[in-house]
């Protein structure tokens, strides 16, 4: 029983750790977004916002990415990969940039004007601005 509670707690912790946030650089002109807007941005349908050309930053393969894709984009795996192929090879959108892990995304977002990324909740700090939580 004790073990079961432990596992239950671990499960809760794990679930919480997977909550995430869509972020931009602290000084970015972009403001809060709703789920629909975030989806559009990360599916390459919003090349510009507030007069700024956007650079979409995806995380490398792993739990934070899968989590974001299933919760927010509603597309993942081969489906999402095929979707991007259509946009990239027809010039309808620029390929997203990939950054390794939360730290990589934060660095990329901080150094690239117009970059939008996502990180797990725990990685949010003063260097970034949160536009959306999921």
């Amino acid at each position, binding site marked *: 029983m004790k073990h079961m509670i432990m596992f239950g707690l671990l499960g809760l912790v794990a679930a919480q750790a997977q909550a995430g946030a869509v972020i931009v650089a602290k000084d970015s002109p972009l403001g809060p977004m709703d789920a629909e807007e975030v989806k559009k941005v990360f599916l390459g*349908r919003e090349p510009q916002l507030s007069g700024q050309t956007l650079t979409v930053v995806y995380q490398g393969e792993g739990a934070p990415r899968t989590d974001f894709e299933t919760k927010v984009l509603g597309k993942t795996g*081969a489906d*999402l990969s095929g979707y991007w*192929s*259509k946009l990239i*090879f027809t*010039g309808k959108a*620029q390929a997203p940039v990939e950054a390794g892990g939360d730290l990589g995304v934060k660095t990329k977002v901080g150094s690239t004007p117009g970059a939008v990324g996502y990180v797990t909740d725990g990685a949010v700090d003063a260097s970034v601005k949160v536009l959306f939580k999921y």
Partner: protein
Amino acid sequence: MKYMLPAALCTALGAACLAPAQAYDFNSVRINGFGQVVGGSTLDNNRQYPTNSVPLYAYDADPKFGEESLFALQVSAPLTDKLTATAQIVSHGNDNFKTTFEWAYVNYQFNSDWSAKLGRQRVPFFYFSDYLEVGVAYPWLRTPTAVYNTVGGFSNFDGASVNYSHSFGKWELDPQFIYGRYTGTLFLSANTSPANTDIRNLVGASLHANYNDWLNLRAGYFESQLTVTNTPVDPVVAGLQQLATQLGQPIYAQAASDLAVNGDTVTFMELGSEINYAKWQFITEYIELKSYHNYIADTKAFYVALGRHFGKFLPMFTYGRQNGSTSSQLLGEIPDVPVPPYPAAAEAGVQQLRAGAAAVLASQTAHDSYYQFDLRYDLANNVALKADFTTFNSSVPSRNSSNLLSAGIAFSF
């Protein structure tokens, strides 16, 4: 030593170093690619596929592995905040992996909705035109032959396009307008060398509408002035013109002009739809190609496809049909017997030309059906294995029926 390396590079690169451009951030250049390796063979001796007009790929009973294999690299470089230069370089197996620029354009992004492309790009004839060669982006091994071989391999133009993209509630609308020209070769008749083609004043528009991610509707209309030489109709046209001069009968000159493709109007219309619902995928397209005052057939074609996802597997069944017919009036313009008075030798000449014209017109006819079975397996997110079995039947006696089996791997990176 540290400073010698750039100096050495400068020597190697020569003039490029003399006028150093403003430092360009090469990190902003995106390089992506895709490709496929496909092998196939017909199942009966002496049977080819396809047996009709477009030998973009041609299979027979000896397995071939290069016909539809290709490798492509796309380089996209932002020039300014709104201007991007993109080139897509493709090597085709059936062209001995010679590289060609399928796309080469600059894109200007006016704002979030409007953009314009100048340069070489795809003609958006079909639902899958834009990513015709990106095998990972569609379910079949090859897009359905019944519809996709109706334009003789015409897929690129040089010119301008204007694109708009905007969502209205759950609808996402993407109209596109194009204007341009194509000069090059196209396949217009079976078993002949490609025709020299000049497609001028190509103008048209397509509209893609997506509802809530699952329903896609598409329509397109295009027009152009077509001039074609080096086709089987050339000797007939030349013979008729000669006859007109010899006999002083303008009726033959008229017949020649009505067969030849010389700045004639050609129109193309497309309707398409794709529905992705639950695990089902349904795709259909209908096209009409109309050619005025020449020997090229008017073509109507469609296909319907239904597939269902089972995890990483996607089996799909497709039925396609293509009908091509030429105006019966054309042959009637060449009289059986020349209008008297005429020298005795002219009669044989007229009948020979009439037979020549009849053969060319008959080669344009199509009453073809295709049953296509495909299986796709997603090996990884960006790699798909595909197999296809197509059985082709024609009620035109000069065409064989044939069965084609092919398999391949498609990838993107």
